[in-house]
């Protein structure tokens, strides 16, 4: 039984997307992956289908649905939580090509993409620490030079999110150990209201800039920045674009180029160049993670600060700075 008016047509490639829990529309991680496949859709003649499992237990089945049908040239598994499920499925379907983002699965038909989130977070930590000490006003926000406080809001506690926190705190510490970091978890990636109140309380405690790794909850952080006239830093994609309403308080975003990873993988499949069994480490050097300054106010950040951030970036790439990977 088909849908209304459905018609099949031959294409260069069919892609199955299995998103991380939380699903598309998070304006960050999953949406980035989706942008990758959409970009491929625009540039090549492909079709793609999407699965948005709601819990970790559903990954296995979602991956398998694609793989077992044999209709897909590539199955993209977005998110570290899919690793366990994929290691089984890769073995079961040796002829199916997979990619996985944010984890490493060792199998000949899987290509893994890993991002160096701590390093990316380290850089926005550096940026925040440098700014909180200076007098700076842009868009709808301004810093309070008397207080040297910054904040971090996490979604649910998990080793991954804690690695964002670890990198961020280390970045702040690297610049000025007297800058205080307030860190807090909302316990939910969807609780905008608590995200807002959490960030508000940070701003009220003197924070000038709050960095979030909290999915949808992060929208609350931007709202709080807006309401309190302070700054926020986004995550995963350039949130000054995806959350345009808050562009005048978003200094920068710690971008993970998930879209790049997905796009290049699809491209390689179309060109018959797909190589499994490898793990690509996407760090600062590969531009896999980067600091993208806000569309609207990013260019007002003093040059000496952005230069300092760039110096730090180079130092990390050169191995002069060791970035902690966990708390």
């Amino acid at each position: 039984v088909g849908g209304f008016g459905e018609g099949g047509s031959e294409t260069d490639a069919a892609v199955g997307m299995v998103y991380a829990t939380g699903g598309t529309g998070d304006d960050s991680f999953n949406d980035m992956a989706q942008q990758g496949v959409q970009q491929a859709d625009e540039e090549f003649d492909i079709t793609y289908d999407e699965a948005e499992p709601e819990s970790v237990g559903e990954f296995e089945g979602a991956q398998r649905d694609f793989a077992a049908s044999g209709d897909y040239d590539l199955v993209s598994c977005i998110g570290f939580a899919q690793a366990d499920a994929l290691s089984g499925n890769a073995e079961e379907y040796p002829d199916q090509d997979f990619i996985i983002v944010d984890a490493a699965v060792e199998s000949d038909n899987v290509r893994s993409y890993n991002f160096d989130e701590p390093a990316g977070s380290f850089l926005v930590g550096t940026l925040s620490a440098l700014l909180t000490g200076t007098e700076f006003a842009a868009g709808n926000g301004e810093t309070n030079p008397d207080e040297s406080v910054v904040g971090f809001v996490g979604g649910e506690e998990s080793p991954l999110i804690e690695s964002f926190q670890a990198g961020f705190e280390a970045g702040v510490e690297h610049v000025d150990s007297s800058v205080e970091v307030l860190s807090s978890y909302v316990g939910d990636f969807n609780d905008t209201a608590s995200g807002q109140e959490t960030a508000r309380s940070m701003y009220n405690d003197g924070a000038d800039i709050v960095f979030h790794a909290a999915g949808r909850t992060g929208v609350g952080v931007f709202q709080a920045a807006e309401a309190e006239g302070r700054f926020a830093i986004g995550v995963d994609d350039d949130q000054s674009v995806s959350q345009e309403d808050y562009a005048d308080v978003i200094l920068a975003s710690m971008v993970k180029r998930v879209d790049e990873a997905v796009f290049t993988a699809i491209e390689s499949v179309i060109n018959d160049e797909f190589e499994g069994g490898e793990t690509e480490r996407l760090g600062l050097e590969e531009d896999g993670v980067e600091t993208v300054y806000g569309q609207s106010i990013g260019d007002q950040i003093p040059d000496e600060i952005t230069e300092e951030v760039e110096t730090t970036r180079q130092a990390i790439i050169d191995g002069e700075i060791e970035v902690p990977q966990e708390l």
Partner: protein
Amino acid sequence: MSSGLSRRTVLGAVGALAVLWLVAGLAFPDSWAGALLSIAASPSTHTAMLRLAVPIALAAIGGIFAEKSGVINIGIEGLLIVSAFSSIIVTFWLGSGGSTLALSHHWWGFAVGVLASTLFALIFAVVCIDFKADQIIAGLAVWLIALGLAPFASRIVFDSPNTAGVGRFQNVTVPILSEIPLLGYLLFDTPPQVYIMLGAAAAGWYLLNRTAFGRWVVASGENPKALDTAGVDVRRVRYAAVLLSGIFAGLGGAGFALGQLGTFAGGGETAIGGRGFIAIATYLFANYHPIGALGGSFLFAGLEAMQIQLQNLGYAVPTELIRTIPYATVIVVLVFVGKTQLPEAAGEPYDGDEE
């Protein structure tokens, strides 16, 4: 015989503890007590408390009407979800920032949110009153339907369980009054949904205690047959009470959505996240008193606001545990103040024809 403690004793004990805390906190500002005190005393805790109290207080007041009339509405959480979601989506459709017929689109969205919640309450009323459904089960169903429907609709419109953002209500500052020390910033410089909450609590109290309708609601929950034989249509009273619970919950959900959320996240437990259930605990705690429910919602919202701040202090308490404080408090409150007397006929469908 009486195993529990009386409400009065418990309130007394809580009061004594509070005084002890105050003294300890003032004497040793660096201690736990002092830190907690500074959090509790901080204006940002208070304003956060007021904002977070909105959905809890309004849903609780709504719940009071339904349950007092004999219909236990455990689906209040669903009503909050429905009103929050529909107010956002309607504002989005109309275009946030604009206005139609001299009323800003936010207020149109707000009105539709209340309407949607009332409509759901109407379905619940039909099912419980006319079809004599088990109220707990029907309430649960209302919650589950709302829990599925909001992200379902959102995915169709936005291709995502989350809606787009629509901006939020601005604070409304009452000139002069907002200058009053202590109370001014709290009560007279605050977003509109807080005024709505305060007004609704007063209105709810008046309606329940001072009008004939309010007395009928009480009678319908205690002894519907008495009301029936006094010539008042129990069915109509119950319908009205359940619809009222929809209106109040709608005010809470839409106010919270447009005043606080500015967007609706439909994943997981949604952006409402169980606040409707806290509301039920709140009105039980308040023993069905609308003003008491307002106070109770301050307690729970205050705890939520405090746990947020507590994390910032960086004490080495696991954040996951701190977050359970409000829930644990609900249990403690129920256990010690739990002598709430359910209305005699609550939960029973009324059948006028039966002996």
